[in-house]
Structures are given as structure tokens and as C-alpha cells.
């Protein structure tokens, strides 16, 4: 049987035989990685795409023995800020600083422009609903546009209050947050429509947002992270917002003598485990942490990886792997830009460690 890529399918086993240490992807990009995404469930194999500030989008296959195989690469004219897969895994979408979004047909290996904005595009997501599908782009030009990939004009355009800083899409829900810390939830079933405006719990610049689901895998809330080492867990519909919604601190150093000051780092990305519902956060401090939002506890925090910030993270669609990128995110301005530090993408087996702890 051939896959969408025209490759003969290899083993489809989902059980991995890796050890517990993190593995490194071969041939990582030459500049900071902006976004990591695993292929969707529709494909039996596991592919990983990474977009970077070196203007390229790369694709690897992650084999069940932990080997990463470099597959292909495409380039924009400027740094790529975001990427995503189509639901059937046949296409990859990228967008970034050249103010365009492109569609990569992996089988035909074509790379065509499908969208344009007036300012760099910060987010790109694929929307798949029973009645339609489209691509959503969010830009620093304060608009969000929805594209049929075959047309040059957007299907719909929304004007938001400020530059789009982060967005996420899951099923019939989309969440977009802007530079003014506004959070807007959209319902996607009858075409994208404004559903609810949510007032943020965070007092500092928003940096990332990720939707979570209830036990039946229906989206019912989101986590939003800020530059102030804090994540807010918010439910879209709740009778008791002050009870159900909360924030927690993360990615902060332990105050040490002599200064005894605490360094607070930005939360660069948040990802939810597709099976367990627990979440991972990565930050400028170079660590990743796993959390249980229902139990309101921390599951684990890593050591500092490579002495460098972690810019993005993602889980694979079966919940087996956790991948994260070690790159400089510019949180220390110029002084932190050490040219000799390499960019790296790591991944680890995570199914067991992401399980919520049994309640005593």
C-alpha cells in the first residue's frame, strides 16, 4: 500500500523501542526553529516538519527505532514563523516574514503561494470541518484571513484589535490572542464566527496559546502563556470561572545568593498530549515541563537543555513522542546571541511520563 507520499508503507507499529534519553534530529535548520509539527493521524508513519529563521521548512520521517530520516526541504524568501499540516497529511502550510503563506504538496513537491498579508504572518492553521476546509492565517497586520488554497482572495477576513501573537485551532474551535492581550474564541462550524471574547488572566504579553479538550476530545478551553513565566488555564464555558480558571507560574529560576533575585522567563510554547490531556510548556530558560491541569500539579521539569532557550514543542498525533527545539529566541537581546551555539531538535518517548499521576 502506498502512502500519500508515494512511499511504500513500512511498519505501522506505534510502540517505540527508544530508551528514555532524548534523541536528536539529524540535519537541523541553520537558524532558530520557529515551529514544530508532527504529521496527523491520517498517515501511518510519523513525519516531523520544522520551520526556521533560515527561511526554510524541513521534513523528516521519525522511524519506530528512533532514527530520523531527512526527507525534503523548501524555502521562503524570509524567515518562516509557523507551519502546519493538512488533515490528510498530504500538504504542509508555511507562513512568515515574507508576508505570504505557501502550500507544499508533498507528493508533487510543489510549493505555491496561497495567501498574502500586509505584514508578516505569525500563525497558520488548517481548518477541517464537515462542511468545509480552509487555511487560517494570523498576521501582525491585525487581520486574520481564511483561505481556500485555490483562490487568491480570502474566503473571509477578520479585523482584530491588535497584531496577532498566537492562535490555535482544534475541531470546531479557534482561539486567537493579540498584542493587547485580548483573547477571542471563534466557532468554526458555520464558517468562522466570533463566539466569545475572553478577558485574560495574564498581565503580561501573551506568547502562545493551545486548545485543550474534555474527556470526549471536544475542545472546551485553552492554555495561554505569557512572557512572565506564567500560564493561564481557561475554560470557554464554565459556570464558575473563578473556580475553574487559574494561572500557574513556570519557567522561573530559583533565587540564588548573592542577588536572590528570581529570573522570570517567557513561555514560548504550550502543547497538550493528545491522549492524556496533560500539557507541556517550554521556555526561554531552556527547560521543558510537564503539567496536569486537572490535578493542578507539575509532573516533571527537565534540566536546562544545551544552555539555550527552547522555542517550540509538539506531541505526535498518537501521543508517543514529544519533540522540542533548542534555539536562541532572542530573550536576552543581542548579548545572548552566541553564534557558536547550534540549533537542535530533540524528541523523546513520552507516553508513560505524560500520564496523569493516580490520585491518592
Amino acid at each position, binding site marked *: 500500500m502506498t502512502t500519500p507520499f508515494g512511499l511504500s508503507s513500512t511498519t505501522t507499529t506505534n510502540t517505540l523501542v527508544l530508551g528514555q534519553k532524548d534523541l536528536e534530529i539529524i540535519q537541523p535548520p541553520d537558524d532558530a526553529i520557529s515551529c514544530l509539527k508532527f504529521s496527523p493521524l491520517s498517515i501511518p508513519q510519523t513525519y516531523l516538519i520544522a520551520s526556521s529563521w533560515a527561511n526554510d521548512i524541513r521534513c523528516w520521517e521519525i522511524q519506530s527505532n528512533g532514527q530520523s*530520516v*531527512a526527507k525534503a526541504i523548501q524555502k521562503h524568501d524570509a524567515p518562516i514563523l509557523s507551519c502546519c499540516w493538512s488533515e490528510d497529511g498530504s500538504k504542509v502550510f508555511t507562513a512568515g516574514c515574507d508576508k505570504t503563506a505557501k502550500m507544499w504538496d508533498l507528493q508533487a513537491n510543489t510549493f505555491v503561494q496561497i495567501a498574502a498579508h500586509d505584514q508578516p504572518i505569525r500563525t497558520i492553521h488548517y481548518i477541517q470541518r464537515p462542511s468545509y476546509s480552509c487555511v487560517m492565517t494570523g498576521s501582525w497586520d491585525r487581520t486574520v484571513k481564511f483561505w481556500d488554497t485555490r483562490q487568491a482572495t480570502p474566503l473571509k477576513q477578520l479585523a482584530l484589535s491588535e497584531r496577532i501573537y498566537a492562535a490555535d485551532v482544534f475541531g470546531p474551535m479557534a482561539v486567537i490572542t493579540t498584542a493587547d492581550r485580548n483573547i477571542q474564541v471563534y466557532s468554526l462550524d458555520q464558517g468562522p464566527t466570533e463566539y466569545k471574547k475572553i478577558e485574560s488572566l495574564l498581565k503580561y504579553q501573551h506568547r502562545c496559546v493551545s486548545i485543550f479538550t474534555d474527556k470526549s476530545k471536544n475542545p472546551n478551553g485553552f492554555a495561554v502563556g505569557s512572557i512572565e513565566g506564567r500560564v493561564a488555564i481557561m*475554560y470557554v464555558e464554565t459556570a464558575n470561572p473563578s473556580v475553574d480558571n487559574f494561572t*500557574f507560574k513556570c519557567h522561573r529560576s530559583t533565587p540564588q545568593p548573592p542577588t536572590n533575585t528570581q529570573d522570570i522567563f517567557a513561555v514560548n510554547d504550550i502543547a497538550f498530549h493528545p491522549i492524556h490531556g496533560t500539557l507541556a510548556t517550554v521556555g*526561554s530558560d531552556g527547560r521543558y515541563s510537564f503539567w496536569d491541569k486537572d490535578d493542578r500539579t507539575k509532573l516533571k521539569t527537565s534540566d536546562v537543555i544545551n544552555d539555550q532557550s527552547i522555542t517550540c514543542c509538539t506531541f505526535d498525533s498518537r501521543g508517543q513522542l514529544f519533540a522540542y527545539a533548542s534555539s536562541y529566541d*532572542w530573550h536576552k*537581546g543581542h548579548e545572548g546571541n552566541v553564534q557558536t551555539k547550534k540549533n537542535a531538535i530533540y524528541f523523546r518517548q513520552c507516553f508513560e511520563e505524560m500520564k496523569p499521576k493516580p490520585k491518592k
Partner: protein
Amino acid sequence: MGRKKKKQTKPWCWYCNREFDDEKILLQHQKAKHFKCHLCHKKLYTGPGLQIHSIQVHKENIDKVPNAIKGRDNIEIEIYGMEGIPEEDLRQHEKRLAGKDKDEPDNTDTIKVPPIVGMPPMPPLGVMTPPPMMPMTFTGIPYGITPMSLSMMPVPMMTQLRPPIPVVPTTAGNSATLLPSNPIISSGPPPTKPLFPSGTTNANNDVNSSSNITTMVSAATAISNLSATTSGSLPGNKPKIEPIAGAAKIIHPDEDISLEEFRASLPKYKQIMMPQQIQMPPMPAGLSMANFMPPPMPPGLSFMVPPTGFSPMAFNGPRF
């Protein structure tokens, strides 16, 4: 205070009659309670300043100072700390103080009641401020409730206001006009049925049981002073991140723009972005690279982009 000279004793707020230990705290109070934009939480310096901001940025006309008592909510009068207070009101206040000194110590009840009675119900912060909270900071709030009570303007808050305001029908009348103009509150019953499942209300209501996740405590003071993100950021207007008071420091460039924006503005990347023609026409399909992996894939293949010149990977053959 043994002086005979009867100057103003403690600084007090013209808008709500509260007293403060010194003028700095009074100013902080005014900025947080009376000159704060309910839409974007930006703190202005004066009442007229807030009005202008609201019109310019949110296109909304404010005619009353938030959290002010009746008769002291004129948004056009320019008060800053103790400056700008009309003579008449100064004398009135002194009289009240003098009167109180004779009878009883300054009763906090007097402070509590006006905000509830006279305040327009729109900003719920006014209702939250009595007993548990200090005038200007948001510390002292129980953990589980910390951010919620401040930042959310849920409908239940509004309904809660009705009972405590039995005496002022005009206030209720005000609320009728004020509510619709507030774009943030999703008014009363949501216009559409909820499309997304409810949050788990029974899952772990006991916030304090969690050992590792706590809401902010030490940073609360600074967070209340935040006016980090300005609304309507104009080009060239680079708002700074509000620093956290105390022994904590956010490791981030000073400008309150995203790290990506910061990086994209660096010469290294800017020159990549600038010369490019905007709105490129769709690229021709002829760009397809002929050597995208054909089946079956042999090991040791490198990325096929000549310019970057990848060396073929060396790894153990795949074992399946």
C-alpha cells in the same frame, strides 16, 4: 499632629473620599481606581486623560469617572493627587474630618458605603475593593481567586450589584445605559447557546490542595501597576514592559513587542524581508524538485538542495 496650623492632614481622594498615608499612595490609588481604562486596563493620569484615551483608542465616550462617588464623578475636572481639588470640597472635607475627630475615629464604614452606593456598576473592581483589599494593590487576595476577581467581568458580578444598591434608583438607571456600551462583557444570557462543553466544575475545586502550582503572590503588587501593553500601538511607539517590583526580573528585551517582532527588526533579517516584492504572484509549479523521495527510499539520502550542500547522513541502516 500637635501643630495648630490647620493644613490638609492626610492626602485624600476627591473621587471617593478615601484617605491615604501619603500622596504617592493616593496617586497610585487614583491611577488604579479612577483613571484606569476598563477596556484595556491602561492607566492614565487624569480623568480627562482617560476620556480622551477612551475616545481615541476604543471609540467609546466615557462620561463618568469609574469608582467615584456621586457628585465626584465628573470626568472633565482635572484632579491629580491633591492638586485640582476645588476649594469648596477641600473645606467640606476638612469639616467632615474635624467633625469626625470629635465624635469617633475615622470609620471605615464611611469609606465603604459611598463606593457601593454611588459607583456606576460597570467596573466590578469597585465592588471587589471593600474589605479584603488594600486601596491600590491587588495583594492579599486568596490564592485561588487572585486573577479572576480582577480581570474577569462576568455577568454574575453584575447581578450581584443589584441587592447592595437598594437606595439609588439613578444608579440602576445608569447601569442600564452603561452595560450595553461595554463591549467586553458578554451580556447576560449568551446570545447563542454554548457550543463548547463546560469546564469541569467538580474537578478539583480545592485549589489549595495542589502542591506545586500556586498563583501569584509576590508579583501581585507589581502586576497591579502594570500598564504593559498599550492599546493602539502606533509605529514608532514602543511601550516598555512593566518591571516587577521586588526580587524578580523578566528576562526579555525592554520593548513590549514579541520576540519575533524584535528579531525581525534586526538588520540581519530586515534586509532579507525588505527588498522582497510584497504580494508575489503564485509561484510556478515548475519549482518542484525532481528528486523528492521516490519509493522505495534508500538509506543515506540527504536533503536535495544543492546550494546548501548537505553531506549525506551517516547512520545505521534502519531496522524494522
